[in-house]
């Protein structure tokens, strides 16, 4: 029973949020688009000129771009595989009755609350360091040669670090979904002689499919923008072997001061993220009764 008066008031109450977000989206984004058509280097102020799509041409034909694109896909894909498979298994395990459920849940969730720079530096120094790291100690104890993870397998190491941070998120959401599963249905199928695998494939997995999709999409949005973990561990190196798109754009714009090229890269990143976002928005929109 909204009156015209309350409608007007409602519009007034909504407008600050809308205007701010509009400003946040339109102003900087259109600036990025504008810069992406300029030859613009921060070291040469006043020399800006319009050069059309040249920045895009350079960015998209740069070997570093292909390396970064491949790394981005590997990073997102690798972390997704680990967290979805691991998270599903962990959720199934934590859903069983056992002693100390609350405490184990807390232990499992904890990594999600560790800030990215801390987890990256702890893994880099105290675990993966080839001289003083814990992994090196165990390798030596077993008579093996210590492995320099971040020098010889930089991307894989970063995938492990990021997966450790996101595994709790996947587990928590999948566990929430699992707990809303109808127990009677499970029991009935058990009485009909369905074994664990049957029950998992035909009852549990379909029930969780929606939650799994949501986890995939949300993680993808965040994983496309992994930055701090790369900055403090490898700086994108050696070479470009652990540079993702986000880091490449950062390096181009704030380390090489190439505003034009960096902007073109930023727009490419926006387009990539939008491809994922469209699917995510559809999923969420379906669930929304506003």
């Amino acid at each position, binding site marked *: 029973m909204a009156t015209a008066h*309350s409608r007007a*008031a*409602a519009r007034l*109450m*909504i407008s600050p*949020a*809308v205007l*701010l*977000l509009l400003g*946040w989206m339109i102003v*900087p984004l259109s600036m*990025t688009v504008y*810069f992406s058509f300029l030859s613009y280097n921060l070291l040469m102020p006043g020399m800006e000129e319009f050069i059309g799509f040249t920045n895009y041409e350079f960015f998209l034909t740069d070997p570093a771009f292909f390396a970064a694109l491949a790394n981005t896909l590997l990073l997102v894909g690798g972390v997704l595989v680990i967290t979805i498979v691991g998270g599903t298994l962990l959720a199934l*395990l*934590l859903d*069983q009755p*056992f*002693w*100390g*459920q609350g405490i*184990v*849940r807390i*232990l*499992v*969730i*904890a*990594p999600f*609350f*560790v*800030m990215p*720079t*801390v987890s990256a530096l702890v893994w*880099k*120094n*105290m675990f993966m360091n080839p001289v*003083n790291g*814990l992994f090196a100690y165990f390798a*030596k104890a077993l008579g093996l040669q210590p492995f320099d993870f971040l020098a010889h397998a930089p991307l894989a190491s970063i995938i492990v670090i990021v997966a450790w941070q996101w595994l*709790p*998120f996947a587990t928590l*959401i999948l566990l929430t979904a699992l707990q*809303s599963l109808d*127990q009677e249905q499970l*029991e009935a199928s058990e009485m009909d002689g369905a074994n664990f695998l049957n029950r998992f494939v035909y009852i549990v997995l379909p029930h969780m499919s929606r939650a799994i999709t949501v986890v995939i999409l949300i993680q993808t949005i965040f994983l496309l*923008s992994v*930055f*701090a973990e790369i*900055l*403090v561990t490898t700086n994108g190196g050696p070479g470009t072997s652990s540079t993702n798109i*986000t880091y490449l754009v*950062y390096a181009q*714009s704030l380390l090489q001061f190439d505003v034009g090229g960096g902007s073109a890269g930023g727009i490419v*990143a926006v387009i*990539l993220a939008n491809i994922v976002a469209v699917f995510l*928005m559809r999923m*969420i*929109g379906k*669930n*929304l009764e*506003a």
Partner: protein
Amino acid sequence: MSRRVSNRRKALVTVIAWAIGIAIFFPILWTVLTSFKTEAEAIASPPSFVFFDWTLENYTEVNERSDYFLHFMNSVIISLGSTLLGLAIAIPAAWSMAFVPAKRTKDVLMWMLSTKMLPPVGVLIPIYLLFRDFGLLDTRTGLVIVLTLINLPIIVWMLFTYFKEIPGEILEAARMDGAGLWEEVIHVLTPMAVPGIASTLLLNVILAWNEAFWTLNLTAAKAAPLTAFIASYSSPEGLFYAKLSAASTLAIAPILVLGWFSQKQLVRGLTFGAVK
């Protein structure tokens, strides 16, 4: 929920679950333990787990040498400031969307969400240049503004899903009794909305505390919160494991505690209500 389980099976699950739980938690545990060692012990081989001389010297040293308290306060001010500002903007918006829905409400909500999906590098350069020109680089004010904006969609969404659960009839009744819009908000809605607002606040403080793209790119020495301060340990001099551990432990301890209280809100807030 009445599945009967044998004790043997329960014991087995207990052992496996605890082993995995401890393994996942181990890097944090190891960091906390190392923070109480001397630098020499921190890299000793074989590493000692419990039987070393416990010391607090790293904590005092981190504090003295690096102005740790300044960065800690930066984190507190930035995360709390951006959350409170965000709430002040989002509460009226979420309220009106939940209780006076219009035809376009759903579109507005979805559009707000879409701003969250904008990758930060897409606007890194303009924000950096605008901050430079307005003197906002390396200021707490600047970071509060950016973090408010990037988390605003999440705040609106979380509040919206909570407000949706408040029965509309109560507001109708208040309106019949002659309550005006603001009285309605302050006397009727607010008390019922406090738990939802508190959960939103909690989750958002956590997200802002750990934000590590804008904090790293827009701060230097003065306004750097803990995320950026810890990053300075990526190119250290000399032995630093114990000090890194002490600084890290202090940085993550408050948020771990808050986080454990907010498990449920986390699911709701980060899936935008798609999983409950």
